[in-house]
């Protein structure tokens, strides 16, 4: 049954990875402004011209 412990650790590591990813994105400011990126992406194609 100890394989469960290994599985548990793997699952925690993966979940922990996502947690770190989330914290990182928060720290990076991705959650500071939730309105402008949604608008900005509409112009992405046009900008590259």
């Amino acid at each position, binding site marked *: *049954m*100890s394989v*469960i*412990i290994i599985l*548990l650790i793997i*699952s*925690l590591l993966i*979940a*922990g990875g*996502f*947690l770190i990813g*989330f*914290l990182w994105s*928060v*720290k990076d400011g991705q*959650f*500071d*402004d*939730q*309105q*402008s990126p949604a*608008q*900005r992406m*509409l*112009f992405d194609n*046009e*900008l590259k011209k």
Partner: protein
Amino acid sequence: MSNSRAISLQCYHCGNDVFNSTIGIGEKLFCCNGCKMVYEILQDHQLCNYYELNEQPGVIQNKSRRSDKYNFLDNTEIKNKLIHFSNQKNSHTTLYLPQIHCSSCLWLLENIHKINPGIISSRVNFTKKEVFIVFNHHETSLRGVVESLEGIGYEPYLSLNELATGSVSKTDRTRWYKIGIAGFCFANIMMMSLAHYFVSNGFIDTKIEIVFQTISLLLSIPVLFYSATEFFKSAWYGLKNRYLNIDLPVALALVITFIRSIYEIINGAGNGYLDSMSGIVFFMLIGRWLQSRTYQTISFDRDYKSFFPIALNVIKDNIVIPTEISNVKVNDLIQVYSNEIIPVDAILSKGNANIDYSFVSGESLPIKVNIGELVYAGGKQLEGLLELVVVKEVSQSYLTNLWNNPIFNKKESIQKSSYDTIGKYFTYAVLVIGLIAGMYWFKMGETKLMWNAITTVLIVACPCALLLSQNYTNGNILRIFGLNKFYLRSPEIIERLSRINHIVLDKTGTITQTKGSNVKYAGKLLNHAIQVDVASLLKQSSHPASQLVSDFLNVPNVSMVKHFKETEGQGIEGWVNEKHIKIGSSNFVGGAYFTERQGTKVVVNIDGEIVGEYTISNKYRFGVSKLIQALKKKYTLSLISGDNNTELANIQEMLGKESDVFFNQSPQQKLDYIKELQNVYHFNVMMIGDGLNDSGALKQSDVGIAVAETNNNFTPSSDGVIDSSKLSMLNTFIQFAIAGKKIIYITFSISAIYNVIGLYFAIQGILSPVVAAILMPCSSITIIALTYGLTEWLSKYYQLNQTSKL
């Protein structure tokens, strides 16, 4: 450019109606030269996509500009306050642009480098209406950046207040961290606990069990000691101030749950309640987040400083020096241009002064000031250049004196909400139940069961359900209010709003429009030729009343006026086309044309005969009388205004005879009146006002709501801001707040059923973690679903769901 757009008489840039069809380029018409100029700038730089993205995306530009307006931005001291980073090549600055309102704005502002090549990059924060700009300070200057922004119609909002505090506001990210961590820990603890719930006793391997429990315990530590800190802080704050708030029993329950879980795990007695505990923290944090999503673009704490310009032009030895406002000294000679605010008390020395005090004192008509007379701080010059000698500095002026009133320094007192009271009784009740159960088991000699009962009762007793329903309901109400352009400073205001029983209104700018007066004529029919004659005479005078009437007559060409004479404060006379015309007050003209109309009267006398009179009255906002009729049924009303009493009869009729109506009130008197209502009559007062003269009253009242014409207008410090177009819905908003309170009570009662079930097990000392783990999410989800469903249903009921998007 597509030609498919219907050519109507709307400004191509801002969408306002076009009255003068001579301003245009090709088929495109503009309402004013300002808008046309913006269009030309954009066309020159091939930025006309701006118009393709949204119809008429611009903001009206009918302000005249002058080239040296931003001279003060070359002043190093001021510049350094606005630039927050600078190296050898580049400087960074963040500017607040209240005009940002659509995706076209975002596109244009992020392409501004095409207009001003010195700008390296710009990034818009839509929520905060800020633009972050990196520019090369060898190629352009801060002034250049600001001028390019103004050129395309986005005039940055620069004010003393922002300078003092630093304009770059940082968003608080800790709540995200807390939610993220709590969510992660909750999910993983739950996963491991589930294993425990699904096996019959003893089936799970002890080794695995120990590992599971240890990890659960480790995971619960950050939840309790990091994510839940705000509950402990708030509980401690309440204790320190000797009052029991709702966070105290929550904090208590969390601690007891944690300790008991550790105890169980160490003794091998069970799995503990760590899953329930972290789940509760997670849900409560989300609730708090929903509730605290305040409106970042709206500032509720503005004082007079935000209203004033940053710098003034001071003339010294015939040289104009832009000077930061705090450095302007007594006896300095200052220049003030059209539409600028005079930030100091000063004596007029040159120029034609028509000062609009409506914002400072509530007077609806502008006041003509003669040379040598005093101009008070806060007045706005309407047209023409003025030179004034400073009498009192900014910090000592008549206007700023109001801010020395202790009410402005008072810290926000702890407002007990009724939910705290419920929470308190709830806690007491539960403690008593716990003790009785404990004593019962003690008597029966079952000490183990006794401890079980006492602790589990406390765990179940956590009034998190009340907290959850409060947070989720208020959060949704705030959101719905926001969609309807009614913005509240904090969720506590909703509850205060539901308790008011007296409403005080301001007149100028609140129930009447700031711009525009109603001019009506009564008397003999005047043919066009005579109208031209009257208008010609009126155009000779700069008195505000004359200007209003001549605007009303709207005559383009003028006849010659001979022997023009103006009697100060009385009226004007002169000869036009062989006729002697006298216009002015009834004393001056020599009699009145009798009408029952209310308002300022301007009587016309032609060749000794009184032909008629013009009445100038305030324009009331749309739906105001209907609103007052509705409010009258439920609340007592009064009106307090700084203006003269020409509208008395109108207002008294609207409000009813029993209401108090006061005119000519100073800001201090307004404040004192609110105080009297509160202390003598024990009313919960709501004040609705708009100007600086209301700010004392707004602060003193239980709920102070400021009316804003556009959401980038200055509004004095208040508990909430309402868009003037939505003022007529105020009664609905109040009813919605009251209904919101009922929703909280209903959902709380329903969730109390879960608590009773929990208690049923707890007092018997047999509340197992499984039961807790089932009850907890059930109760939370029921509450969230119910509050959401009920508030949405109510918003439909009150027709608050037909909203326009931002």
